[in-house]
């Protein structure tokens, strides 16, 4: 059984890799299995965690749960064409809650917090700061400022304003280049993991 299982795993692994060559039957088969199994897997997990886990095991007496269930049932009203429109209520509920929740969350951690962090002495907090630290601090302040200028919608990118926006774009490009370069490494790691499975765990070719 164990032999069979590891061959299945290897078969599917290579099926996905074969997509790099071109779309083919092997890939289509792996894809079909992937979609079917994963959709089922997701539902089973949701069911045990959120329905069984919360209504039977967890906080079963909590009124909040039943409000949730009620909203869920309203959602299912879509299946009944006549009253399908009622499913917009839970949808409206979700959209309102998401909007309200994220408004504050993003505002506090993305705006307030980042502004606070940018407020720092350019020349370092004390005399131990090196030239590099100072340059770094200046770069951070200038970069954040000019980056914000780039995102300004109400003014055409012209003149001094346009020049600053240009600097902002440069900073964004450095950011993107740096994150991309940094990522290459991690992506390679994933492939290393898979090939280690094929050549090591499966075929036992790695000493």
């Amino acid at each position, binding site marked *: 059984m164990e032999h069979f299982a590891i061959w299945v795993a290897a078969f599917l692994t290579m099926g996905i890799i074969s997509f790099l060559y071109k779309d083919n039957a092997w890939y289509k088969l792996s894809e079909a299995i*992937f979609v079917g199994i994963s959709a089922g897997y997701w539902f089973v997990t949701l069911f045990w965690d959120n329905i069984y886990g919360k209504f039977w095991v967890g906080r079963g007496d909590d009124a909040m749960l039943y409000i949730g269930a009620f909203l869920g049932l309203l959602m299912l009203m879509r299946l009944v064409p006549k009253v399908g429109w009622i499913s917009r209520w839970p949808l409206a509920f979700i959209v309102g809650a*998401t909007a309200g929740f994220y408004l504050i969350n993003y505002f506090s951690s993305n*705006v307030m917090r980042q502004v606070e962090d*940018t*407020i720092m002495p*350019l020349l370092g907090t004390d005399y131990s700061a090196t030239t590099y630290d100072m340059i770094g601090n200046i770069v951070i*302040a200038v970069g954040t400022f000019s980056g914000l200028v780039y995102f300004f919608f*109400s003014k*055409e990118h012209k003149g001094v304003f346009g020049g600053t926006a240009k600097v902002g774009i440069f900073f964004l490009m450095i950011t993107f280049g740096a994150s991309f370069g940094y990522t290459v490494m991690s992506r390679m790691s994933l492939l290393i993991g898979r090939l280690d499975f094929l050549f090591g765990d499966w075929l036992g070719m790695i000493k």
Partner: protein
Amino acid sequence: MSFHIAFLLLSVSLIVPSPSAQDEVADSVAVSDSALVVAAPPTSVIASEHEYDDGEALDLSWVPSIDDQLVGGLVIAYRVYRSTNGGELEMIEELIPGANQFTSGELSSDSSYSYVVAAVTTSGEFASNATAPLSPETEWLNYEKKWLFLIGLLIAGAVMYFIETARKGKKLFVRKIAGLEAIDDAVGRATEMGRSILFIPGIQDMDDVQTLAGLTILGRIAGTIAEYDTKLFMPVSRSLVMTAARETIKASFQTAGRPDKYSDDMVSYVTDEQFGYVAHVDGIMVREKPATVFLLGAFFAESLILAETGNSIGAIQIAGTARPAQLPFFIAACDFTLIGEELFAASAYLSNEPRALGSLKGQDVGKALAMIVIVIGVLAATIASAWQVESMQSIVDTLNSVFSTN
């Protein structure tokens, strides 16, 4: 009864309440009297109201035992005991040596609580006096967050002010955004080529604000798609997104006067699982060869898999996400990328509706505010640290406390 005796013992700082500890002490005493390790109990134990909560916590502070020393200290832990409404003492917490405060949570404002803190040595516990009974109070406003509230209100107010100004008919200028200008062309291109349009609203559910942004953009372009009579298909990875996307497209087709062209088949659910979904979308891309691909929403690692596959089939790709980690991949592999904020601005921009455009003006106020604060703050901090100017330091401290979020 036993409680009263124990309490009496506690108040005169003798050894110990809890039965298990008592046993231990008895054992060690039995072995050798000289092994008894005596420590002074913690003093000045004070219980006070925990600020800005729902009446469910009290703060406790004390002066550690004088035998609690870093080197050669006798105290191995502190135990906090609580008595509810004058009831029996129960241990609720054990803290490391050196501890001098504790927040006692999960209380009710209907009850009163009294605390005892005991220093623990290898021989037993040496308890402090009990604190006076206290009930936690419910506060109705969290004053700690007043600045978050005020600045938030200021910016939200600016957004609403401009929405209102625009509604009254004042023309507001918003500069061109390259990625958004390209959207109409991209739809047109698919029509000319007689091929389809693929729209991916990210892989998150409706509880992610980026998915909402993707869907609002869909709402704008679905109208154009209806007018051009182009084929649209939209595999999604969440059931709720499927429902919402169908509503969105249906409404847009209706508004464009082509409700007959709408079909539920445009939107289909694939699987919630990230890579299962991606495997399917990749397959469908190379099979259907859409002329235009929209990737607008929350994306994770799959961003590049999708964008590179889309690139390999020669599709025009317009992408946008607010996940900074994924932006570089879209920049590298797509024709146009909406960077962070632009994703959220897109639907307003595309709608060309005055009120929506007004909201963009409003968020510029926020940016201007951030920029001003950064300039003032950085200058003040620099002057303060370089020349030790007190007044500048106080500006920095004020700004820091205003923008501090915790």
